[in-house]
């Protein structure tokens, strides 16, 4: 499927917006984790994977989930994240995880459950990266499992569900009218989806 220019710019700009928010989230994360330990802070994980479900749900093209998460991570890296390359690498793994969810449904279903699945798989991707690269091998097995569980839950709620809420609000404001998400709604004959005025 060929990408339209406006879809490309939209993907990049959403990724940039997410990247800027991620950076704020990262600076919030450190003091919290220094206080309650990394375990408690893992509840905040889900926000870092929200770029994928939001973009994929709007654009509905193969690659949207992966590209947006990777680009958001790159923005975080370029604007001076203390996670440095890890931010980018985690972004890549999370993006792959999220992409798998949409690929499983052949890029045809963007129900909230698929978005939640993408959040969960992104959490798994993040864990895969940590196992490959980082200090996680340093922790015990129970810690690992509970981290994964917490991150998956957070990915489902803060990533998938929240993405649905955000996209829902965006749809109401009418800014998405020119994108695939609204086109499909129109095709399905939601005559009541017309926006008045504007």
């Amino acid at each position, binding site marked *: 499927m060929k990408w339209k220019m406006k879809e490309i710019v939209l993907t990049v700009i959403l990724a940039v*917006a997410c990247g800027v*928010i991620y950076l704020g989230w990262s600076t919030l994360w*450190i003091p919290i984790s220094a206080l309650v330990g990394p375990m408690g802070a893992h509840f*905040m994980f889900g926000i870092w994977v*929200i770029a994928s479900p939001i973009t994929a749900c709007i654009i509905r093209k193969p690659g949207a989930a992966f590209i947006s998460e990777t680009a958001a991570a790159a923005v975080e890296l370029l604007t*001076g994240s203390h996670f440095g390359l890890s931010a980018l690498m985690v972004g890549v793994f999370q993006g792959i995880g999220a992409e798998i969810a949409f690929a499983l449904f052949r890029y045809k279903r963007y129900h909230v459950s698929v978005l939640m699945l993408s959040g969960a798989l992104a959490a798994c991707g993040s864990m895969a990266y940590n196992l490959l690269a980082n200090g996680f091998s340093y922790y015990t097995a129970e810690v690992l499992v509970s981290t994964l569980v917490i991150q998956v839950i957070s990915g489902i709620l803060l990533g998938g569900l*929240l993405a649905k809420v955000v996209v829902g609000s*965006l749809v109401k404001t009418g800014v998405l009218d020119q994108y695939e998400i609204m086109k499909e709604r129109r095709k399905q004959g939601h005559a009541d989806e017309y926006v008045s005025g504007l």
Partner: protein
Amino acid sequence: MKGNHSWLSSLNPACKLFAHLLVMFMLMAISDFRETLAIWLLAVAIGISIGGWRISYLLKRLLPYFGFFVMIFWMMAAFGKGEETIWSWAWFHVTKESVSHGLTISLRMLGFVTYGLLFTSTTDLTSFIMSLIHQCRLSPKWAYGLLAGFRFIPLFQSELSQMKAAHKIRGYKQKNSWKAFARYSLPLFTQGIRKSERIAIAMEARGFTGSRDRTYYQTTKLAGKDFVYFIGLMVVVFGVWMAGFVL
């Protein structure tokens, strides 16, 4: 992202980025804090000698990260496991192993930041994107799309801080994290989507098709000095790493 007239900023951006990414990979593989320290110091030395950094600039840019350094060190040191307990209180548990591990992780963080800064402070964003087109075969459609989007980083940052000021006046405090996210993201996203549509239309209205069939105002090439920097950096970093095994 701007160039700064240093020798480092005259290098091919894609090649420089690749070199720094490789160093970051090696940093991830190294688990000894002395080697990590040495590689971090190397970045500082490169910055000062050929990166055009002044000491004052270095301090200004890195100082905020020393706070993180301390916090990350503490986080790794106080929640780790290990045999030789040095100090423990409440749920904090500091051991000899966790201290050394904490030092490695926090120095690695500093290393990431410094190598990242070494790239961003010496690279012009446009020539970086151009080198992605010319050296990495990125399609112009995506390359120019990236440029158009990256222009918005400062705009979004300033909007975020304006929003914080506006919320302060209205006495809004985020009690709940996901609500706070929705609150901050909605204005950014709606603005962003409107602007992205306008930009894409403006670009296409000016005849941009995204195909490779176009001429270029700026082109980037690979030169001898790029290989010198790349190989030099690799040899030194690899040397430090191997020195750890030998000693």
